[in-house]
């Protein structure tokens, strides 16, 4: 079974509709996804080649219960062990994997769980990524907050008690340029202790500029590490360029960022291969930049406005848990974030096994924190959401729930130096 991603909107002009259909049906209308566009920086790096060669040769059907047993018994988890833990042969060992993962998490992080919230400041997008609510052909309310509106949102979030924020935009350089994002980040430094961004990939000098604006963490999701699959899902726009996205974290580190975050969007392609590649992306970059802080996320596909059928296919909660346990056992030192795409029950359980960070008080829309946080309805225009969230717990509820699970919620563990 596959997801049906193509949805036409009656609001599109005939010319736009025609172009959309051509992109969807005529491969000759598509740009080469492995070719950089003008202005995109090319860096010398062998990380990509290392990750992709491992991923391509990964045949998870060859692993047996014996390999999984050995992987669980080894004190240090090798790349081969990790592959065994990701394989279907490891499924019957899920509880044991969870026990081992829990021990590793507790050694490195104790009983802490970090809380953060995302803040979307604009949802304009120049790309046609078929599964995303922000894609340029999806008919949604578009919005870009001005600095006054951004400050208003930040005040409301900061008043709730949150100290770490992740600033997001849709991927439109034209509507949300780097300077605009930089100004928002400077503002965020006033209200929050820690500021991260999840925006379109940029060049090293632009990451350096954002770092100077107070940002220290950069999240870029590769969506899928399978470039052939990637090009069938990202049909148009700068996001179509797969290798420029792959090297984003490395450019961010060269630009002076303290930490970087990685993920595939599980459900787009073969999740075992994507999980392997995500973790190896971290593994090889960490060897090259040992001072950098690394973290992994694990989003699964969610329904979007105008397409409520989108789902993560074969990645159920058990498979997701297997991936997260394998991540933890292979990379005991990395942060693992589980977003509000997952249910409250799943998040309450996984923070006791492998996850170290959860979001709370989440909105993936634009300019709607006041109504969502206070229930106060207003007439102000709002931008639509990127995807539907599942766990809508507020900061306060999350704080109480995490404490109730015997965990220690941490709001900040960071100094900007």
């Amino acid at each position, binding site marked *: 079974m596959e997801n049906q991603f193509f949805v036409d909107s009656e609001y599109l002009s005939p010319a736009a509709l025609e172009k959309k259909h051509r992109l969807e049906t005529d491969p000759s209308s598509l740009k080469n996804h492995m070719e950089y566009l003008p202005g995109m920086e090319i860096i010398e790096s062998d990380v990509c080649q290392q990750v992709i060669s491992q991923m391509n040769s990964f045949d998870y059907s060859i692993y047996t219960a014996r390999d999984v047993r050995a992987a669980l018994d080894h004190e240090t988890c090798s790349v081969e062990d990790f592959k065994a833990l990701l394989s279907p042969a490891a499924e019957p060992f899920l509880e044991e994997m969870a026990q081992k993962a829990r*021990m590793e998490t*507790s*050694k*490195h*992080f*104790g*009983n*802490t769980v970090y809380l953060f919230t995302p803040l979307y400041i604009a949802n304009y997008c120049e790309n046609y990524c078929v599964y995303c609510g922000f894609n340029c052909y999806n008919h949604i309310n578009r919005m870009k907050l001005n600095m006054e509106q951004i400050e208003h949102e930040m005040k409301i979030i900061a008043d709730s*008690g949150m*100290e770490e924020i992740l600033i997001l935009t849709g991927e439109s350089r034209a509507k949300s340029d780097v300077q605009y994002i930089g100004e928002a980040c400077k503002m965020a430094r006033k209200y929050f*202790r820690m500021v991260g961004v999840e925006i379109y990939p940029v060049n090293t000098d632009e990451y350096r500029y954002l770092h100077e604006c107070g940002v220290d963490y950069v999240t870029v999701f590769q969506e899928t590490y399978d470039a052939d699959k990637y090009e069938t899902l990202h049909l148009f726009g700068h996001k179509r360029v797969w290798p420029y996205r792959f090297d984003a974290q490395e450019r961010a580190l060269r630009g002076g960022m303290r930490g970087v975050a990685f993920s595939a969007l599980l459900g787009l392609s073969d999740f075992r291969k994507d999980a392997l590649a995500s973790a190896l992306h971290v593994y090889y970059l*960490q060897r090259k930049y*040992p*001072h*950098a*802080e*690394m973290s992994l996320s694990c989003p699964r596909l969610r329904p979007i406005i105008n397409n409520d059928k989108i789902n993560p296919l074969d990645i159920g909660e058990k498979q997701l848990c297997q991936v997260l346990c394998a991540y933890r056992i292979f990379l005991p*030192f990395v942060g693992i974030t589980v977003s509000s795409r997952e249910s409250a029950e799943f998040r309450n359980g996984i923070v006791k096994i492998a996850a170290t960070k959860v979001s709370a008080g989440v909105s993936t829309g634009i300019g709607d924190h006041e109504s969502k946080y206070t229930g106060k309805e207003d007439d102000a225009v709002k931008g639509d959401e990127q995807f539907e969230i599942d766990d809508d717990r507020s900061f306060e509820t999350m704080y109480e729930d995490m404490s109730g699970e*015997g*965990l*220690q*919620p*941490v*709001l*900040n*563990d*960071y*100094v900007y*130096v």
Partner: protein
Amino acid sequence: MINNDKLIIGGHEFNSRFILGSGKYSMKLIEAAIKDAGAEIITLAVRRANTKEHENILDYIPKGITLLPNTSGARNAEEAVRIARLARELGCGNFVKVEIMRDTKYLLPDNQETIKATEILAKEGFVVMPYMYPDLNAARDMVNAGAATIMPLASPIGSNKGLATKEFIQILIDEIDLPIIVDAGIGRPSQACEAMEMGAAAIMANTALATAGDLPLMASAFRQAIESGRIAYLSGLGRVLTRGASASDPLTGFLRD
């Protein structure tokens, strides 16, 4: 002798030789842990204390306990110095544990940068306690830079692997005139006891407590182990037979007076 056995760090006297870590277990347990550990010094990460009013770790530390802020998060000497100064501004006092890591996987300390930071901070009047990889030359440089103690690691932080660097820590104990405080990797009371028998001046532990089933009970076990090890050290350990029995007839009995 035992009654007057004080740990002296930068001119300050302590009765306890157990330094507690914080940050890996619930703040509500800090008070109980301090009590059962009999601890007088507790470390805290400045970056964790860099928070607004919501449950600041500083609020959970009882009065009369010496705070030992650490510079975790620093990747070089300059960052460590800035974090130490921030600690002072936050009201954490003059003690500082210098931790400089350029490796997020093993969290191994960078001795060279630590020497530099030690020198700057000692000149600024801090009581500097550098966390280091047990290397004699680096330790001597830290002494010359003005360190108040030397804090070698037993094994990687959080690993609970015990005295993996035992031989090198022994060299520091033998050669360095400052208190040697064994930090990181001590996973069991028996390992803490062993380090104290060797002549370590104190033990610092965090993960060993945080991962225990009953944290205050483990704190109490560590306290007893550390005290036992200290008493054993002070009493002068007896002969240790490494290979079978030794000959009862002396080999040098033939020598004439």
